[in-house]
């Protein structure tokens, strides 16, 4: 039988507020254990939560940016379960009246568009961190608890099970990441756990409408792990079903080192979260004016920006998609072309040499050693034929460590392109004279032999000869 996967994601997105969701402790990542804590986030006897206004603003903005309806009446609830990273043994979250519901985002996988529906977006507090004494939770005789992260604000973005492959799930999560970055509500640093996904996967026979039994993988924190976990789980479930077995509804952990998912086999009771309205927090009532105010503050979103780049600058859909996938890159692009650099060249340089360099060094584009202005200037040198594309690569390499303007670098290093016909002619004559075999080959009908001669001319000019002119002159002389 052929199966199709049904995949849904719950993405937890840490918000970039200064303080926690229910108290004034700082949210800074990486502080010493148990230093960003107070009686409130430690859940001490007698404490009460207070709602950080920014969190509500961010929740509404995230809802608007993902085409959700904003609930005019929203409230917090207690989700009760015991875990040592949760000091009150309940998570203050939202149950039946989340801040936003019924949205969607569009994704694009290999040129195929698909709309993924959002069930809801709700606000909640993050839990603390456990440091286990052993290598895994299972072989640890004890664990240590750090409550710094307790109370860091989260949005939980819940999708409908609308995805059917790991690629779609990845594209969806990338889209959510991109939108959250654009509206500036999260740093979205996956390595710091700003963005984590719980994945639900089930299989059903192709064509069937009924959903199969699903498994859940929690806290997936990279795109690679997301894809690996889903692909492994699809294969695993397929095998179980092919063998006539049943899928057990359970939470599984993903082991990135081995690329497999494992049953938690915990004896936990079926969860009964005993949700109840949070009596310590009055409801959130949002007026149409507030919603419109927040809507007016939203920046241009990735889809709109991509369309604009295609229309205004003639970028391909693919290039525009990559450039606009992160707000920082899109802004970098805008800055590069601001002074007249060619948009297509700019896109090529950003997606090519610049991205390669940044990825290799693990640097964010906003901190690029070659800022947008200098890259723009360099591209203009290419446009003015001051340097060739090939020389530009040399100039770019130099710019990574040399803060001078590209113009100065080109001058200092003597990299200005030779466009003087006389000078190039001299080199061409010399090369023709010294490479009789290639000349003979060419004349004998092997037109490809010209390539070797061009190479020799470029080499002799230290790469500075204008390649078009070299080609033209060589052809003239050999054919003439």
């Amino acid at each position, binding site marked *: 039988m052929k199966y199709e996967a049904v995949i849904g994601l719950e993405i937890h997105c840490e918000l970039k507020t200064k303080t926690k969701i229910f108290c004034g402790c700082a949210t800074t990542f990486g502080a010493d254990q148990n230093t960003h804590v107070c009686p409130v986030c430690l859940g*001490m006897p007698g404490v009460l939560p207070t709602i950080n206004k920014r969190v509500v603003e961010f929740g509404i903005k995230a809802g608007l940016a993902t085409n959700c309806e904003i609930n005019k009446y929203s409230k917090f609830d207690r989700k009760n379960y015991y875990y040592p990273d949760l000091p009150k043994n309940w998570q203050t979250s939202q149950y039946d009246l989340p801040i936003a519901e019924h949205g969607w985002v569009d994704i694009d996988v290999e040129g195929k568009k698909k709309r993924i529906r959002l069930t809801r977006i709700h606000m909640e507090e993050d839990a603390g961190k456990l440091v286990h004494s052993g290598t895994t939770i299972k072989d640890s005789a004890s664990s240590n608890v750090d409550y710094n992260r307790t109370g860091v604000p989260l949005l939980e973005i819940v999708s409908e099970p609308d995805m059917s492959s790991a690629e779609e799930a990845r594209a969806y999560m990338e889209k959510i990441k991109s939108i959250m970055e654009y509206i500036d509500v999260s740093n979205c640093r996956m390595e710091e756990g700003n963005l984590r996904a719980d994945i639900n996967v089930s299989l059903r026979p192709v064509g069937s409408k009924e959903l199969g039994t699903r498994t859940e993988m929690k806290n997936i924190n990279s795109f690679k792990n997301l894809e690996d976990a889903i692909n492994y789980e699809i294969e695993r479930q397929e095998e179980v079903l092919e063998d006539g077995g049943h899928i057990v509804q359970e939470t599984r952990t993903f082991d990135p080192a081995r690329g497999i998912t494992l049953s938690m086999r915990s004896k936990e009771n079926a969860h009964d979260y005993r949700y109840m309205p949070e009596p310590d927090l009055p409801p959130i009532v949002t007026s149409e004016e507030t919603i419109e105010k927040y809507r007016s503050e939203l920046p241009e979103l990735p889809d709109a920006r991509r369309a604009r780049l295609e229309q205004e600058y003639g970028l391909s859909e693919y290039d525009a998609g990559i450039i606009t996938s992160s707000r920082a890159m899109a802004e970098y692009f805008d800055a590069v072309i601001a002074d007249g650099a060619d948009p297509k060249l700019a896109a090529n340089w950003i997606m090519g040499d610049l991205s390669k360099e940044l990825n290799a060094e693990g640097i964010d584009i906003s901190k690029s050693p070659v800022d947008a202005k200098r890259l723009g200037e360099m591209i203009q040198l290419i446009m003015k034929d001051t340097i060739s594309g090939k020389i530009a690569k040399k100039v770019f390499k130099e710019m990574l460590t040399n803060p001078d303007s590209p113009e100065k670098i080109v001058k200092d290093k003597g990299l200005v392109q030779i466009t003087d016909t006389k000078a190039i002619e001299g080199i061409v004559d010399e090369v023709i004279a010294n490479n009789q075999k290639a000349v003979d080959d060419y004349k004998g009908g092997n037109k490809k032999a010209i390539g070797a001669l061009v190479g020799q001319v470029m080499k002799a000019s230290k790469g500075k000869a204008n390649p078009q002119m070299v080609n033209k002159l060589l052809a003239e002389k050999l054919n003439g």
Partner: protein
Amino acid sequence: MRLYEKPAHVLHDMLVNKEVTAVALTEDVLKRIDEVEGDVKAYLTITRDEALAQAKAVDEKIAKGETISFLEGIPGAIKDNICTKGIKTTCASKILENFVPPYDATAMTKIKAQNPVILGKVNMDEFAMGGSTENSAYHPTCNPWNTDCVPGGSSGGSAASVAAGTSIWALGSDTGGSIRQPASFCGVVGLKPTYGRVSRYGLVAYASSLDQIGPVTRDVTDCANILNIICGHDEMDSTSSEAEVPDFTKALVEDVKGLKIGLPKEYFVDGMDPEVEKTVRAAIEKYKELGAEIVDISLPHTKYAISAYYLIAPAEAATNLQRYDGVSYGERVESDDLVGMMTKTRTEKFGEEVKRRIVIGNYALSAGYYDAYYLKAMKVRTLVQQDYTEAFKKVDVIMAPTAPTPAFKIGEMISDPLQMYLQDACTVPLNLAGLPGMSIPCGYSASGMPIGLQIIGKALDEETIIRAAYTYEQSQNYHNEMAKLGGNN
């Protein structure tokens, strides 16, 4: 007459007029503690040295000619579920036996700003669950009027200490009658302010939507003065009221002419002690004499209030008390694994009544029962509130007994939880509706136990309650009578 017998406002005037020193006053109250605390057992923690140091500082201030605030130098006691920075706060539970809060409750901060003398922390039913203070994990407190009887609860230590003269004033908390009922049993004045009047920040939560801190005092004048101190919006408590706080002492006027007093028939029902009914009706008669108008009213959903309360309060409590798990504070009973540690800790360190309410609460919240119990109770809460809204269209205040009986004997009801819950019939409806209510002494039973009159006001209208209470109080002498016990003879 000893100093401990006087109310705070009289002692304040004496301090101002240099008729007495704060140290002499504090020493007299501490002496009273030495004399009778063995019989009353109102305290869980006595901060003797700190109290004397505070008194000394106040005397120095007075000597320098500086003005002093109302509570300055006046010894008082704090219920042990109100967090006091650096002073153990146990909630009369073993699970918090050694818990020292790193912060003060907001009400405590406001009280401390007055420079009072804090004598210590007083006993209560564990986590404020109970109406007799027998549920304290440490010891029961005895009623100063008859030490065989309970002082009521859960603020039994607050009421007993004020009645016995082992404190001049006290703070208590009221979730279903926990200030008013012990005030009634001990013959003192107790006020539960409107929900939100006093910040709950630092009040260890029992049932968050019902809890409220309030004063327990010798007379209505002290009550109004302390209310002035503790009320007001607090940014740490999102449910605290932003309404302006009036000067409650301006309501200390003897005038009830034309005041419309509602008498709800549902509060005078079967099972009510005839002496209580008679005494309360006599007090109502007195109001009539003083010029008030008595109006018969009906609060038809009163009979459902106990059920609603004993579902809502335990449900909130079940979640509120989940935090006591032995992880980051409080006692821990060790076990090899986490679930075992949490379960052992809670099983061994919580008392019977607390565990019972946690079980009831979790039952009411659990899947399959939520709609039938918890949701239903919240709907009934709406109906109870609507009853009052309707009634207050016709009357200015509502009067009723505070409790259906005078103080009962220690041990008399402890084995029958439901019987104990039914004792709260006259007090819990207000908490459900968030309304203010006061208990003032209005007479005695044949055996000499105090009986309380409950005065219920509109939301945020403590002033009318104070005016009504003050007028009656001044027409009687109950507020000048101290419990007869120990060294008082």
